[in-house]
């Protein structure tokens, strides 16, 4: 499952939720929800979309690890590297 540009997938899905955001201006270490003004429903929709796009299981309890861009990329890379995709 290597070769997937996780950041590009996040950028695309974020663009659906927050089309006015300049992705390049986002600080990868700062809470994405604050930077992109995502409410609980938006964030759940982002997780849902990443789950479908990447085929990785993202338990609800892990959501916190995806609140920053660097956290999300690290988490998803780890998921894609280890074990078969779940769904």
């Amino acid at each position, binding site marked *: 499952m290597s070769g997937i540009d996780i950041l590009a997938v996040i950028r695309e899905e974020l663009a659906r939720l927050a089309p006015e955001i300049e992705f390049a201006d986002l600080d990868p270490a700062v809470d994405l929800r604050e930077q992109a003004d995502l409410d609980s429903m938006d964030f759940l929709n982002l997780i849902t979309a990443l*789950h479908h796009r990447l085929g990785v299981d993202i338990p609800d309890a892990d959501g916190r690890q995806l609140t920053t861009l660097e956290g999300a990329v690290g988490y998803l890379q780890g998921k894609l590297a280890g074990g078969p995709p779940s769904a």
Partner: protein
Amino acid sequence: MIEFRMPSLGADMEAGTLVEWLVKPGETVRRGDIVAVVETQKGAIEIEIFDTGVVDRQLIEPGATVPVGTPLALIRSEGEPSQPPPVQAPAPAPAAPPPAAKPAPVAPPVAQPAPGQIHVSPAARRLAAERGVDLSRLTGTGPDGAIVLADVEAAAPAAAPSAARPAAFDFSQMRTAIAAAMSRSKREIPHYYLSDTIDIQAAVDWVARANAERPPDRRLLLGALFIKAVATATRAYPEFNGLLQDGVFRPAPAAHVGLAIAIRGGGLVAPAIHGAADLDLDTLMAQMRDLVGRVRVGRFRSSEIADPTITVSSLGDRGVEALYGVIYPPQVAIVGFGKVVERPWVTAGVVAPRQVVTATLAADHRVSDGHRGALFLGEIGRLLQQPEAL
């Protein structure tokens, strides 16, 4: 014959623009079907019909702005004979080749209107203004020689096919609509405000357990529990659920909870989740997702906009700890939930970290008093202690 009219989609709406018809003459429609899209200050709204029958005739063309109450179409009940249009075309000579599927417009037999008395349909007038067409130089093909949209189209065809969807969302219109409703609210409604901080650890834990087993698209948000709790609490406290119109408060038989949804870039709408007290949490959550999704693209239905009976504004996990709502007239109450925070909390004499939320109530003093308001808020808090029962 039933007249399908431009609906009122809020106390402040005076007129609406028909954007498109979603049904054709001859089509059967059922109560609840979406039959048209109307552009209002709140954006494009899908209009449902409340009668069952067959679309007999459409009286208004897309593009026309008409006052609330204007008949848009005639609906005949099943079996009722079709009503002939006012100007009946004479039967074409059998030899003449039949025109294309669309019946050819027929010149009116006599009615050549007197000069200066041109009848122009609103849609035609609007399009003519847009394209700079001189109406006095056109020959109308509509009833009694009226100039209709097709005549203007023929005189000045669009350079590119015009988009069926309304243009980009109009934020200034939205601001105007909010200003009108909220000014009226603050002018007319004597608000009183109550606030209570509720320990919702039980609900937070319950949602976490429920979500642990679920894929993301079936997960719940606490917001669904808040809406369910408010809707359920109105059963015991009906004076917070209903409409005050012409000085009379009428409690609503069901709780149609308006869900305040912020629009990116500014503004908000609070379309309704119908009969929220009777929905199980999964259905309620699915409807919330659907509603938020449609608000994001600016499509919601007439009944959702027109008939909330109480509003809930819930901040989720970001924002501030308490929000004090402004009642959307003619409703009489709005319940606010701030962001969920972890706080030191004393339970049974022991301080422990707990997830808490500040719930507020803004209610109309013409209908209820703070004492009942406090009991209502208390009931919402009590219901949230037993999430499995919601």
